[in-house]
Protein backbone atom coordinates (compact mmCIF):
# COMPACT_ATOMS: atom_id res chain seq x y z
CA UNK A 1 0.00 0.00 0.00
CA UNK A 2 0.99 3.58 0.49
CA UNK A 3 4.40 3.80 2.02
CA UNK A 4 4.74 6.48 4.61
CA UNK A 5 8.01 7.61 6.09
CA UNK A 6 8.39 7.11 9.83
CA UNK A 7 7.46 10.09 11.93
CA UNK A 8 10.04 12.55 13.11
CA UNK A 9 10.99 12.51 16.78
CA UNK A 10 8.21 14.11 18.73
CA UNK A 11 8.06 16.50 21.58
CA UNK A 12 6.88 15.66 25.07
CA UNK A 13 5.40 19.02 25.89
CA UNK A 14 2.08 20.18 24.69
CA UNK A 15 0.45 23.57 25.13
CA UNK A 16 -2.84 23.52 26.98
CA UNK A 17 -5.79 23.91 24.63
CA UNK A 18 -7.66 27.14 24.37
CA UNK A 19 -10.53 27.12 26.86
CA UNK A 20 -13.02 26.49 24.05
CA UNK A 21 -16.75 26.60 24.32
CA UNK A 22 -19.23 23.96 25.36
CA UNK A 23 -19.71 21.85 22.27
CA UNK A 24 -23.33 20.87 22.69
CA UNK A 25 -25.37 19.15 20.03
CA UNK A 26 -24.10 21.47 17.29
CA UNK A 27 -20.60 20.15 17.87
CA UNK A 28 -21.86 16.60 17.51
CA UNK A 29 -23.57 17.45 14.22
CA UNK A 30 -20.35 19.05 13.00
CA UNK A 31 -18.44 15.92 14.05
CA UNK A 32 -20.87 13.65 12.22
CA UNK A 33 -20.52 15.80 9.13
CA UNK A 34 -16.73 15.47 9.36
CA UNK A 35 -17.09 11.70 9.64
CA UNK A 36 -19.47 11.33 6.72
CA UNK A 37 -17.57 13.60 4.32
CA UNK A 38 -14.14 12.19 5.14
CA UNK A 39 -14.63 8.66 3.85
CA UNK A 40 -14.68 7.80 0.19
CA UNK A 41 -17.58 5.37 0.43
CA UNK A 42 -19.95 8.32 0.96
CA UNK A 43 -18.86 10.09 -2.20
CA UNK A 44 -18.82 6.93 -4.30
CA UNK A 45 -22.19 5.70 -3.11
CA UNK A 46 -23.80 9.05 -3.84
CA UNK A 47 -22.20 9.19 -7.30
CA UNK A 48 -23.50 5.68 -8.04
CA UNK A 49 -26.92 6.74 -6.78
CA UNK A 50 -27.03 9.78 -9.06
CA UNK A 51 -25.64 8.04 -12.14
CA UNK A 52 -27.85 4.96 -11.81
CA UNK A 53 -31.00 6.98 -11.08
CA UNK A 54 -30.65 9.56 -13.83
CA UNK A 55 -29.00 7.24 -16.32
CA UNK A 56 -31.57 4.48 -16.03
CA UNK A 57 -34.44 6.94 -16.11
CA UNK A 58 -33.19 8.27 -19.42
CA UNK A 59 -32.23 4.90 -20.85
CA UNK A 60 -35.39 3.01 -19.93
CA UNK A 61 -37.68 5.84 -20.99
CA UNK A 62 -35.94 6.11 -24.35
CA UNK A 63 -35.96 2.33 -24.94
CA UNK A 64 -39.62 2.03 -24.02
CA UNK A 65 -40.65 4.87 -26.34
CA UNK A 66 -38.64 3.26 -29.15
CA UNK A 67 -40.36 -0.06 -28.55
CA UNK A 68 -43.73 1.67 -28.77
CA UNK A 69 -42.74 3.41 -32.02
CA UNK A 70 -41.83 0.06 -33.54
CA UNK A 71 -45.21 -1.31 -32.64
CA UNK A 72 -43.82 -3.64 -30.02
CA UNK A 73 -46.13 -2.92 -27.20
CA UNK A 74 -45.92 -5.02 -24.11
CA UNK A 75 -47.89 -4.78 -20.93
CA UNK A 76 -44.90 -3.35 -19.08
CA UNK A 77 -44.59 -0.54 -21.58
CA UNK A 78 -48.20 0.46 -21.05
CA UNK A 79 -47.40 2.43 -17.92
CA UNK A 80 -45.60 5.08 -19.91
CA UNK A 81 -48.91 5.92 -21.63
CA UNK A 82 -51.33 5.62 -18.74
CA UNK A 83 -49.08 7.15 -16.07
CA UNK A 84 -45.85 8.55 -17.57
CA UNK A 85 -44.84 10.37 -14.37
CA UNK A 86 -44.94 7.17 -12.37
CA UNK A 87 -42.93 5.44 -15.11
CA UNK A 88 -40.26 8.16 -15.06
CA UNK A 89 -39.93 8.28 -11.28
CA UNK A 90 -40.19 4.52 -10.81
CA UNK A 91 -37.50 3.21 -13.14
CA UNK A 92 -34.17 4.86 -12.32
CA UNK A 93 -34.90 5.84 -8.74
CA UNK A 94 -36.30 2.34 -8.14
CA UNK A 95 -32.80 0.96 -8.59
CA UNK A 96 -30.93 4.03 -7.34
CA UNK A 97 -32.65 3.71 -3.96
CA UNK A 98 -30.50 0.65 -3.26
CA UNK A 99 -27.41 2.91 -3.12
CA UNK A 100 -29.16 4.99 -0.44
CA UNK A 101 -29.90 1.77 1.48
CA UNK A 102 -26.23 0.79 1.30
CA UNK A 103 -25.04 4.23 2.41
CA UNK A 104 -27.51 4.35 5.29
CA UNK A 105 -26.23 1.01 6.56
CA UNK A 106 -22.55 1.89 6.03
CA UNK A 107 -22.78 5.16 7.93
CA UNK A 108 -23.24 3.21 11.15
CA UNK A 109 -21.86 -0.30 10.51
CA UNK A 110 -18.49 1.02 9.28
CA UNK A 111 -18.00 2.44 12.77
CA UNK A 112 -18.54 -0.99 14.28
CA UNK A 113 -16.41 -2.88 11.76
CA UNK A 114 -13.47 -0.50 12.14
CA UNK A 115 -13.72 0.06 15.89
CA UNK A 116 -14.24 3.79 15.37
CA UNK A 117 -17.46 3.45 17.39
CA UNK A 118 -15.37 3.20 20.56
CA UNK A 119 -13.72 6.54 19.79
CA UNK A 120 -17.17 8.02 19.14
CA UNK A 121 -18.65 6.68 22.38
CA UNK A 122 -15.66 7.72 24.48
CA UNK A 123 -16.26 11.25 23.24
CA UNK A 124 -20.01 11.03 23.87
CA UNK A 125 -20.60 8.52 26.67
CA UNK A 126 -24.32 9.32 26.79
CA UNK A 127 -24.36 7.61 23.40
CA UNK A 128 -27.84 8.44 22.03
CA UNK A 129 -26.82 11.97 20.92
CA UNK A 130 -24.35 10.30 18.53
CA UNK A 131 -27.16 8.41 16.85
CA UNK A 132 -29.44 11.46 16.73
CA UNK A 133 -26.73 13.70 15.26
CA UNK A 134 -25.80 11.00 12.78
CA UNK A 135 -29.42 10.59 11.70
CA UNK A 136 -29.96 14.34 11.28
CA UNK A 137 -26.75 14.94 9.32
CA UNK A 138 -27.32 11.92 7.10
CA UNK A 139 -30.95 12.92 6.49
CA UNK A 140 -29.87 16.45 5.57
CA UNK A 141 -27.35 15.07 3.09
CA UNK A 142 -29.79 12.61 1.50
CA UNK A 143 -32.63 15.11 1.23
CA UNK A 144 -30.42 17.54 -0.69
CA UNK A 145 -28.91 14.92 -3.00
CA UNK A 146 -32.21 13.03 -3.24
CA UNK A 147 -34.27 16.07 -4.28
CA UNK A 148 -31.67 17.12 -6.84
CA UNK A 149 -31.56 13.64 -8.37
CA UNK A 150 -35.36 13.25 -8.25
CA UNK A 151 -35.92 16.55 -10.09
CA UNK A 152 -33.11 15.82 -12.54
CA UNK A 153 -34.56 12.37 -13.28
CA UNK A 154 -38.00 13.88 -13.80
CA UNK A 155 -36.71 16.53 -16.20
CA UNK A 156 -34.74 13.92 -18.18
CA UNK A 157 -37.87 11.77 -18.51
CA UNK A 158 -40.04 14.78 -19.26
CA UNK A 159 -37.76 15.90 -22.09
CA UNK A 160 -37.94 12.44 -23.63
CA UNK A 161 -41.66 11.75 -23.38
CA UNK A 162 -43.19 15.17 -23.94
CA UNK A 163 -44.82 15.53 -27.33
CA UNK A 164 -44.31 11.87 -28.11
CA UNK A 165 -47.24 10.58 -30.18
CA UNK A 166 -48.39 7.01 -29.72
CA UNK A 167 -50.98 5.38 -31.94
CA UNK A 168 -53.35 3.24 -29.92
CA UNK A 169 -55.44 0.54 -31.53
CA UNK A 170 -58.62 -0.68 -29.99
CA UNK A 171 -61.85 -2.45 -30.83
CA UNK A 172 -65.02 -0.59 -30.09
CA UNK A 173 -68.50 -1.80 -31.13
CA UNK A 174 -67.05 -4.22 -33.65
CA UNK A 175 -64.89 -1.59 -35.35
CA UNK A 176 -61.13 -1.35 -35.12
CA UNK A 177 -60.28 2.21 -34.24
CA UNK A 178 -56.96 4.01 -34.03
CA UNK A 179 -56.34 6.95 -31.75
CA UNK A 180 -53.27 9.15 -31.72
CA UNK A 181 -52.24 9.92 -28.15
CA UNK A 182 -49.73 12.61 -27.29
CA UNK A 183 -47.87 12.04 -24.03
CA UNK A 184 -47.53 15.16 -21.91
CA UNK A 185 -46.06 15.51 -18.43
CA UNK A 186 -45.53 18.69 -16.44
CA UNK A 187 -44.88 19.65 -12.85
CA UNK A 188 -48.09 21.66 -13.02
CA UNK A 189 -50.26 18.57 -13.51
CA UNK A 190 -52.10 17.42 -10.38
CA UNK A 191 -49.95 15.46 -7.99
CA UNK A 192 -46.78 15.66 -10.11
CA UNK A 193 -44.79 18.15 -8.05
CA UNK A 194 -45.80 16.28 -4.91
CA UNK A 195 -44.60 13.02 -6.49
CA UNK A 196 -41.20 14.46 -7.45
CA UNK A 197 -40.65 16.18 -4.11
CA UNK A 198 -42.03 13.04 -2.46
CA UNK A 199 -39.40 10.91 -4.20
CA UNK A 200 -36.66 12.87 -2.43
CA UNK A 201 -38.53 12.62 0.87
CA UNK A 202 -39.04 8.88 0.40
CA UNK A 203 -35.29 8.40 -0.24
CA UNK A 204 -34.46 10.38 2.90
CA UNK A 205 -36.68 8.28 5.15
CA UNK A 206 -35.42 5.14 3.39
CA UNK A 207 -31.87 6.16 4.27
CA UNK A 208 -32.84 6.58 7.92
CA UNK A 209 -34.66 3.24 7.80
CA UNK A 210 -31.43 1.59 6.57
CA UNK A 211 -29.40 3.48 9.21
CA UNK A 212 -31.69 2.15 11.94
CA UNK A 213 -31.39 -1.43 10.66
CA UNK A 214 -27.61 -0.98 10.48
CA UNK A 215 -27.62 0.20 14.10
CA UNK A 216 -29.59 -2.86 15.16
CA UNK A 217 -27.61 -5.46 13.19
CA UNK A 218 -24.17 -3.77 13.36
CA UNK A 219 -22.68 -5.92 10.57
CA UNK A 220 -22.43 -4.35 7.11
CA UNK A 221 -23.21 -7.40 4.98
CA UNK A 222 -26.01 -8.62 7.21
CA UNK A 223 -27.67 -5.23 7.44
CA UNK A 224 -27.44 -4.52 3.69
CA UNK A 225 -28.91 -7.94 2.93
CA UNK A 226 -31.71 -7.34 5.41
CA UNK A 227 -32.63 -3.90 4.09
CA UNK A 228 -32.47 -4.76 0.40
CA UNK A 229 -34.23 -8.07 1.02
CA UNK A 230 -37.08 -6.20 2.68
CA UNK A 231 -37.33 -3.42 0.11
CA UNK A 232 -37.01 -5.56 -3.02
CA UNK A 233 -38.35 -8.97 -2.01
CA UNK A 234 -40.25 -9.36 1.22
CA UNK A 235 -42.44 -6.25 1.13
CA UNK A 236 -43.45 -6.57 -2.54
CA UNK A 237 -44.11 -10.31 -2.12
CA UNK A 238 -46.49 -9.54 0.71
CA UNK A 239 -48.78 -8.19 -2.02
CA UNK A 240 -49.58 -11.81 -2.81
CA UNK A 241 -51.20 -12.33 0.59
CA UNK A 242 -54.85 -13.30 0.13
CA UNK A 243 -58.02 -11.49 1.04
CA UNK A 244 -58.65 -8.14 2.61
CA UNK A 245 -56.31 -8.70 5.60
CA UNK A 246 -53.49 -9.49 3.19
CA UNK A 247 -54.13 -6.27 1.31
CA UNK A 248 -54.11 -4.33 4.57
CA UNK A 249 -50.88 -5.91 5.80
CA UNK A 250 -49.23 -5.15 2.47
CA UNK A 251 -50.46 -1.56 2.40
CA UNK A 252 -48.99 -0.80 5.82
CA UNK A 253 -45.51 -2.26 5.18
CA UNK A 254 -42.80 0.42 5.43
CA UNK A 255 -41.62 0.98 1.87
CA UNK A 256 -44.92 -0.07 0.28
CA UNK A 257 -46.66 2.71 2.19
CA UNK A 258 -43.72 5.07 1.71
CA UNK A 259 -43.67 4.73 -2.06
CA UNK A 260 -47.25 6.03 -2.38
CA UNK A 261 -45.91 9.57 -2.13
CA UNK A 262 -43.77 9.03 -5.23
CA UNK A 263 -46.83 8.35 -7.46
CA UNK A 264 -48.85 11.20 -8.94
CA UNK A 265 -52.03 9.15 -9.41
CA UNK A 266 -53.55 6.65 -6.96
CA UNK A 267 -53.81 3.04 -8.11
CA UNK A 268 -57.08 1.13 -7.97
CA UNK A 269 -57.97 -0.04 -4.49
CA UNK A 270 -55.25 2.04 -2.80
CA UNK A 271 -55.92 1.96 0.94
CA UNK A 272 -53.84 4.94 2.04
CA UNK A 273 -53.45 8.44 0.66
CA UNK A 274 -49.90 9.45 -0.38
CA UNK A 275 -49.31 11.47 2.79
CA UNK A 276 -50.86 8.82 5.01
CA UNK A 277 -48.54 6.28 3.42
CA UNK A 278 -45.55 8.53 4.01
CA UNK A 279 -46.68 8.96 7.63
CA UNK A 280 -46.79 5.16 8.04
CA UNK A 281 -43.25 4.88 6.62
CA UNK A 282 -42.05 7.61 8.98
CA UNK A 283 -43.65 5.84 11.92
CA UNK A 284 -41.93 2.54 11.09
CA UNK A 285 -38.62 4.32 10.70
CA UNK A 286 -39.03 6.21 13.97
CA UNK A 287 -39.85 2.93 15.73
CA UNK A 288 -36.75 1.19 14.34
CA UNK A 289 -34.58 4.24 15.06
CA UNK A 290 -35.83 4.19 18.65
CA UNK A 291 -35.00 0.48 18.87
CA UNK A 292 -31.51 1.16 17.48
CA UNK A 293 -30.96 3.83 20.16
CA UNK A 294 -32.27 1.47 22.83
CA UNK A 295 -29.77 -1.26 21.94
CA UNK A 296 -26.98 1.32 21.57
CA UNK A 297 -27.60 2.37 25.18
CA UNK A 298 -27.69 -1.18 26.48
CA UNK A 299 -25.14 -3.20 24.54
CA UNK A 300 -21.41 -3.31 25.16
CA UNK A 301 -19.57 -1.36 22.51
Amino acid at each position, binding site marked *: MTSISPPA*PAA*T*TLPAPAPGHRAGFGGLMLAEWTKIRSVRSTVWTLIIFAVVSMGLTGLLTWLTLNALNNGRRRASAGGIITDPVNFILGTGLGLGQLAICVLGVLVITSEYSTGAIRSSL*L*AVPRRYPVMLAKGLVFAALVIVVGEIVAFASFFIGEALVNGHVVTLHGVQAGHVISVNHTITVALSQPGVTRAVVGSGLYLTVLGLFALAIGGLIRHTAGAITAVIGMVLVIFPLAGLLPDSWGAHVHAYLPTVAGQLITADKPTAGQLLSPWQGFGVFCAWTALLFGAAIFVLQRR*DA
Partner: protein
Amino acid sequence: MIEAQDLTKRYGDKLAVDHLSFKVEPGRVTGFLGPNGAGKSTTMRLMLGLDRPNTGTTTINGRRYAELAQPLRTVGALLEAKAMHPGRSARNHLLFLAQTQGLPSRRVDEVLDLVGLREVARQRVRGYSLGMSQRVGIAAAMLGNPSVLLLDEPVNGLDPEGILWIRNLMKHLASEQRTIFVSSHLMNEMAVTADHLIVIGKGKLIAESSTQEFIERSSEKSVLVRSPDAEALAGLIAAEGGKAIPQDPAEGRAAALSVTGLDAPRIGEIAAANRIVLHELAPQLGSLEEAFMEMTADSVEYGGDTPAVPPRTSPSPFTAASTTSPGSSQ
Protein backbone atom coordinates in the same frame (compact mmCIF):
# COMPACT_ATOMS: atom_id res chain seq x y z
CA MET B 1 -7.63 10.11 40.77
CA ILE B 2 -9.46 6.98 39.66
CA GLU B 3 -11.40 4.73 41.99
CA ALA B 4 -12.64 1.36 40.80
CA GLN B 5 -15.06 -0.31 43.18
CA ASP B 6 -15.96 -4.00 43.03
CA LEU B 7 -15.87 -4.30 39.23
CA THR B 8 -17.20 -7.57 37.86
CA LYS B 9 -17.76 -8.52 34.24
CA ARG B 10 -19.07 -11.83 33.04
CA TYR B 11 -19.17 -12.92 29.40
CA GLY B 12 -21.43 -15.95 29.34
CA ASP B 13 -19.78 -18.50 31.63
CA LYS B 14 -16.48 -16.72 31.71
CA LEU B 15 -15.68 -14.33 34.52
CA ALA B 16 -13.41 -11.75 32.88
CA VAL B 17 -13.19 -9.36 35.84
CA ASP B 18 -13.83 -10.63 39.35
CA HIS B 19 -14.75 -8.10 42.08
CA LEU B 20 -11.82 -5.85 41.30
CA SER B 21 -11.21 -2.72 43.40
CA PHE B 22 -8.27 -0.34 43.25
CA LYS B 23 -7.28 3.33 43.30
CA VAL B 24 -5.05 5.17 40.89
CA GLU B 25 -3.41 8.23 42.40
CA PRO B 26 -2.33 11.35 40.52
CA GLY B 27 1.29 12.39 40.18
CA ARG B 28 2.73 9.01 39.33
CA VAL B 29 2.62 6.37 36.63
CA THR B 30 0.54 3.43 37.76
CA GLY B 31 1.18 0.21 35.86
CA PHE B 32 -1.65 -2.23 35.33
CA LEU B 33 0.03 -5.57 34.96
CA GLY B 34 -1.23 -9.02 34.16
CA PRO B 35 -0.70 -11.90 31.76
CA ASN B 36 -2.63 -11.96 28.50
CA GLY B 37 -6.28 -12.64 29.14
CA ALA B 38 -6.10 -11.40 32.74
CA GLY B 39 -8.84 -8.86 32.11
CA LYS B 40 -6.83 -5.65 31.75
CA SER B 41 -8.52 -4.38 28.60
CA THR B 42 -11.95 -5.41 29.85
CA THR B 43 -11.33 -3.53 33.09
CA MET B 44 -10.39 -0.41 31.14
CA ARG B 45 -13.53 -0.69 28.99
CA LEU B 46 -15.62 -1.02 32.17
CA MET B 47 -13.92 2.04 33.67
CA LEU B 48 -14.76 4.07 30.56
CA GLY B 49 -18.35 2.92 30.29
CA LEU B 50 -17.84 1.13 26.97
CA ASP B 51 -18.84 -2.17 28.53
CA ARG B 52 -21.43 -2.41 31.25
CA PRO B 53 -20.14 -4.06 34.44
CA ASN B 54 -22.23 -6.75 36.15
CA THR B 55 -21.34 -5.13 39.46
CA GLY B 56 -19.34 -2.14 40.57
CA THR B 57 -18.62 1.41 39.55
CA THR B 58 -15.64 3.51 38.58
CA THR B 59 -15.30 7.16 39.44
CA ILE B 60 -12.81 9.50 37.83
CA ASN B 61 -12.16 12.61 39.91
CA GLY B 62 -15.29 11.65 41.82
CA ARG B 63 -17.61 11.27 38.85
CA ARG B 64 -18.62 8.39 36.63
CA TYR B 65 -17.31 8.61 33.08
CA ALA B 66 -20.78 8.81 31.56
CA GLU B 67 -21.54 11.87 33.72
CA LEU B 68 -18.73 13.91 32.18
CA ALA B 69 -20.16 16.51 29.80
CA GLN B 70 -16.98 16.76 27.71
CA PRO B 71 -15.15 13.65 28.82
CA LEU B 72 -12.07 14.08 26.60
CA ARG B 73 -11.26 17.25 28.54
CA THR B 74 -10.97 15.16 31.72
CA VAL B 75 -9.95 11.71 30.55
CA GLY B 76 -7.78 10.66 27.62
CA ALA B 77 -7.84 7.03 26.62
CA LEU B 78 -5.90 4.85 24.22
CA LEU B 79 -7.64 1.51 23.99
CA GLU B 80 -6.67 -0.09 20.72
CA ALA B 81 -4.54 1.45 18.05
CA LYS B 82 -6.78 0.51 15.17
CA ALA B 83 -10.03 1.99 16.54
CA MET B 84 -10.21 4.23 13.49
CA HIS B 85 -11.80 4.11 10.07
CA PRO B 86 -8.93 3.06 7.76
CA GLY B 87 -10.32 5.22 4.97
CA ARG B 88 -10.23 8.38 7.06
CA SER B 89 -7.14 10.52 7.54
CA ALA B 90 -5.62 10.90 11.00
CA ARG B 91 -6.41 14.58 10.85
CA ASN B 92 -10.11 14.02 10.19
CA HIS B 93 -10.25 11.36 12.90
CA LEU B 94 -8.86 13.83 15.41
CA LEU B 95 -10.95 16.67 13.98
CA PHE B 96 -14.28 14.95 14.56
CA LEU B 97 -13.23 14.06 18.11
CA ALA B 98 -12.24 17.68 18.73
CA GLN B 99 -15.57 18.90 17.36
CA THR B 100 -17.52 16.74 19.82
CA GLN B 101 -15.69 18.52 22.65
CA GLY B 102 -15.93 22.05 21.27
CA LEU B 103 -12.17 22.18 20.71
CA PRO B 104 -10.83 24.32 17.86
CA SER B 105 -9.23 22.60 14.86
CA ARG B 106 -5.96 24.31 15.82
CA ARG B 107 -5.83 21.86 18.70
CA VAL B 108 -5.66 18.97 16.22
CA ASP B 109 -2.44 20.39 14.79
CA GLU B 110 -1.00 20.79 18.29
CA VAL B 111 -1.51 17.13 19.20
CA LEU B 112 -0.25 16.07 15.76
CA ASP B 113 2.94 17.98 16.49
CA LEU B 114 3.18 16.28 19.86
CA VAL B 115 3.20 12.82 18.29
CA GLY B 116 5.23 13.88 15.25
CA LEU B 117 2.63 13.01 12.65
CA ARG B 118 1.83 16.41 11.17
CA GLU B 119 3.48 15.58 7.84
CA VAL B 120 1.41 12.48 7.18
CA ALA B 121 -1.81 13.49 8.95
CA ARG B 122 -3.73 14.05 5.73
CA GLN B 123 -3.07 10.54 4.48
CA ARG B 124 -5.53 7.78 5.11
CA VAL B 125 -4.89 5.73 8.24
CA ARG B 126 -4.90 2.51 6.17
CA GLY B 127 -1.28 3.12 5.14
CA TYR B 128 -0.01 3.68 8.68
CA SER B 129 2.17 1.23 10.57
CA LEU B 130 0.98 -0.05 13.94
CA GLY B 131 3.37 2.34 15.64
CA MET B 132 1.96 5.31 13.75
CA SER B 133 -1.59 4.25 14.59
CA GLN B 134 -0.55 4.13 18.25
CA ARG B 135 0.70 7.69 17.91
CA VAL B 136 -2.65 8.79 16.47
CA GLY B 137 -4.33 7.10 19.43
CA ILE B 138 -2.06 8.97 21.83
CA ALA B 139 -2.79 12.22 19.99
CA ALA B 140 -6.51 11.52 20.43
CA ALA B 141 -5.98 10.87 24.13
CA MET B 142 -4.17 14.21 24.53
CA LEU B 143 -6.73 16.29 22.59
CA GLY B 144 -8.55 17.67 25.60
CA ASN B 145 -5.42 18.12 27.73
CA PRO B 146 -6.88 15.62 30.23
CA SER B 147 -5.86 15.28 33.86
CA VAL B 148 -6.39 11.51 33.69
CA LEU B 149 -4.93 9.16 31.08
CA LEU B 150 -5.75 5.50 30.52
CA LEU B 151 -3.43 3.78 28.08
CA ASP B 152 -3.87 0.14 27.11
CA GLU B 153 -0.55 -1.37 25.98
CA PRO B 154 0.69 1.90 24.48
CA VAL B 155 4.15 0.59 23.53
CA ASN B 156 2.69 -2.13 21.29
CA GLY B 157 4.17 -1.81 17.84
CA LEU B 158 6.46 1.10 18.71
CA ASP B 159 10.13 1.02 17.78
CA PRO B 160 12.74 1.53 20.54
CA GLU B 161 12.77 5.26 19.87
CA GLY B 162 8.98 5.36 20.16
CA ILE B 163 9.04 3.34 23.38
CA LEU B 164 11.52 5.74 24.93
CA TRP B 165 9.43 8.69 23.77
CA ILE B 166 6.21 7.40 25.33
CA ARG B 167 8.00 6.41 28.53
CA ASN B 168 9.29 9.96 28.89
CA LEU B 169 5.94 11.40 27.92
CA MET B 170 4.16 9.41 30.64
CA LYS B 171 6.71 10.42 33.26
CA HIS B 172 6.48 14.03 32.18
CA LEU B 173 2.68 13.97 32.36
CA ALA B 174 2.80 12.32 35.80
CA SER B 175 5.18 15.05 36.98
CA GLU B 176 2.46 17.55 36.06
CA GLN B 177 0.27 15.85 38.70
CA ARG B 178 -1.83 14.01 36.15
CA THR B 179 -3.15 10.51 36.82
CA ILE B 180 -1.51 7.99 34.49
CA PHE B 181 -2.86 4.45 34.30
CA VAL B 182 -1.04 2.24 31.82
CA SER B 183 -1.52 -1.45 31.17
CA SER B 184 1.11 -3.87 29.97
CA HIS B 185 2.00 -7.50 29.98
CA LEU B 186 5.67 -6.55 29.62
CA MET B 187 7.09 -6.65 33.13
CA ASN B 188 10.46 -5.16 32.28
CA GLU B 189 8.83 -2.23 30.53
CA MET B 190 6.75 -1.54 33.63
CA ALA B 191 9.85 -1.83 35.83
CA VAL B 192 11.37 1.22 34.17
CA THR B 193 8.13 3.16 33.59
CA ALA B 194 5.75 2.65 36.47
CA ASP B 195 6.14 4.00 39.98
CA HIS B 196 3.28 1.93 41.27
CA LEU B 197 1.85 -1.41 40.19
CA ILE B 198 -1.56 -3.00 40.22
CA VAL B 199 -1.23 -6.67 39.29
CA ILE B 200 -4.20 -8.78 38.24
CA GLY B 201 -4.62 -12.37 37.15
CA LYS B 202 -7.82 -14.06 35.99
CA GLY B 203 -9.67 -10.84 36.69
CA LYS B 204 -8.67 -10.72 40.34
CA LEU B 205 -6.39 -8.31 42.15
CA ILE B 206 -3.12 -10.09 43.00
CA ALA B 207 -0.99 -7.26 44.29
CA GLU B 208 -0.87 -3.52 44.65
CA SER B 209 2.33 -1.80 45.74
CA SER B 210 5.17 0.40 44.60
CA THR B 211 7.24 -1.15 41.85
CA GLN B 212 10.30 -1.46 44.11
CA GLU B 213 8.34 -3.08 46.92
CA PHE B 214 6.74 -5.44 44.48
CA ILE B 215 10.09 -6.79 43.33
CA GLU B 216 11.59 -6.99 46.80
CA ARG B 217 8.62 -8.64 48.38
CA SER B 218 7.75 -11.18 45.77
CA SER B 219 11.23 -12.42 44.86
CA GLU B 220 13.10 -14.11 47.67
CA LYS B 221 16.72 -13.13 47.37
CA SER B 222 19.48 -15.71 47.12
CA VAL B 223 23.26 -15.70 46.77
CA LEU B 224 25.15 -17.81 44.29
CA VAL B 225 28.41 -19.13 45.75
CA ARG B 226 30.99 -21.02 43.74
CA SER B 227 33.84 -22.75 45.57
CA PRO B 228 36.14 -25.75 45.03
CA ASP B 229 35.31 -26.64 48.64
CA ALA B 230 31.56 -26.25 48.35
CA GLU B 231 30.71 -29.21 50.56
CA ALA B 232 32.56 -27.85 53.58
CA LEU B 233 31.11 -24.38 52.98
CA ALA B 234 27.58 -25.78 52.82
CA GLY B 235 28.05 -27.28 56.29
CA LEU B 236 29.32 -23.96 57.71
CA ILE B 237 26.45 -22.05 56.15
CA ALA B 238 23.93 -24.48 57.61
CA ALA B 239 25.57 -24.04 61.03
CA GLU B 240 25.09 -20.26 60.72
CA GLY B 241 21.39 -20.67 60.01
CA GLY B 242 21.51 -20.35 56.22
CA LYS B 243 20.26 -22.78 53.67
CA ALA B 244 22.60 -23.99 50.92
CA ILE B 245 21.31 -25.92 47.98
CA PRO B 246 23.90 -27.55 45.71
CA GLN B 247 23.53 -26.60 42.07
CA ASP B 248 24.16 -28.66 38.99
CA PRO B 249 27.92 -28.50 38.45
CA ALA B 250 28.96 -26.49 35.41
CA GLU B 251 31.64 -28.00 33.23
CA GLY B 252 35.18 -26.98 34.17
CA ARG B 253 33.98 -24.82 37.02
CA ALA B 254 33.83 -25.23 40.74
CA ALA B 255 30.68 -26.55 42.44
CA ALA B 256 28.00 -23.97 43.14
CA LEU B 257 25.59 -23.38 45.99
CA SER B 258 22.44 -21.34 46.04
CA VAL B 259 22.26 -19.81 49.49
CA THR B 260 19.25 -18.27 51.16
CA GLY B 261 18.97 -16.89 54.67
CA LEU B 262 22.42 -15.26 54.69
CA ASP B 263 23.55 -12.26 52.72
CA ALA B 264 26.67 -12.14 50.54
CA PRO B 265 28.96 -10.24 52.99
CA ARG B 266 28.19 -12.74 55.76
CA ILE B 267 28.92 -15.70 53.46
CA GLY B 268 32.22 -14.06 52.45
CA GLU B 269 33.18 -13.59 56.10
CA ILE B 270 32.38 -17.22 56.90
CA ALA B 271 34.50 -18.38 53.97
CA ALA B 272 37.40 -16.14 54.95
CA ALA B 273 37.31 -17.22 58.58
CA ASN B 274 37.53 -20.83 57.49
CA ARG B 275 40.09 -20.22 54.74
CA ILE B 276 37.76 -21.46 52.02
CA VAL B 277 38.50 -20.22 48.51
CA LEU B 278 35.59 -18.60 46.69
CA HIS B 279 35.43 -18.36 42.92
CA GLU B 280 32.20 -16.49 42.81
CA LEU B 281 29.95 -14.70 45.28
CA ALA B 282 26.98 -13.16 43.49
CA PRO B 283 23.77 -11.79 45.01
CA GLN B 284 20.83 -12.82 42.84
CA LEU B 285 18.23 -10.09 42.68
CA GLY B 286 14.82 -11.29 41.69
CA SER B 287 13.64 -9.71 38.47
CA LEU B 288 10.27 -8.16 38.01
CA GLU B 289 9.70 -10.79 35.36
CA GLU B 290 10.29 -13.57 37.88
CA ALA B 291 8.29 -11.89 40.57
CA PHE B 292 5.44 -11.46 38.17
CA MET B 293 5.62 -15.06 36.99
CA GLU B 294 5.68 -16.41 40.52
CA MET B 295 2.78 -14.27 41.48
CA THR B 296 0.61 -15.08 38.51
CA ALA B 297 1.70 -18.71 38.09
CA ASP B 298 -1.69 -19.91 39.32
CA SER B 299 -3.65 -17.52 37.24
CA VAL B 300 -2.21 -17.76 33.76
CA GLU B 301 -5.16 -18.09 31.48
CA TYR B 302 -3.51 -19.81 28.55
CA GLY B 303 -0.48 -21.39 30.21
CA GLY B 304 1.43 -24.29 28.69
CA ASP B 305 2.85 -27.34 30.44
CA THR B 306 6.24 -25.78 31.07
CA PRO B 307 6.74 -24.41 34.57
CA ALA B 308 5.96 -20.73 34.76
CA VAL B 309 8.87 -20.01 37.09
CA PRO B 310 12.28 -20.43 35.50
CA PRO B 311 14.83 -22.30 37.59
CA ARG B 312 16.36 -19.79 39.94
CA THR B 313 19.88 -21.16 39.68
CA SER B 314 20.58 -20.28 36.09
CA PRO B 315 20.61 -16.52 35.95
CA SER B 316 18.40 -15.58 33.03
CA PRO B 317 18.91 -12.53 30.86
CA PHE B 318 15.97 -11.03 32.74
CA THR B 319 17.81 -11.40 36.03
CA ALA B 320 20.90 -9.79 34.67
CA ALA B 321 18.91 -6.89 33.31
CA SER B 322 16.80 -6.39 36.36
CA THR B 323 19.66 -5.93 38.79
CA THR B 324 20.03 -2.48 37.35
CA SER B 325 16.77 -1.59 35.70
CA PRO B 326 14.34 -1.17 38.62
CA GLY B 327 16.60 1.38 40.25
CA SER B 328 17.20 3.28 37.07
CA SER B 329 13.74 4.72 36.82
CA GLN B 330 14.39 8.36 37.31
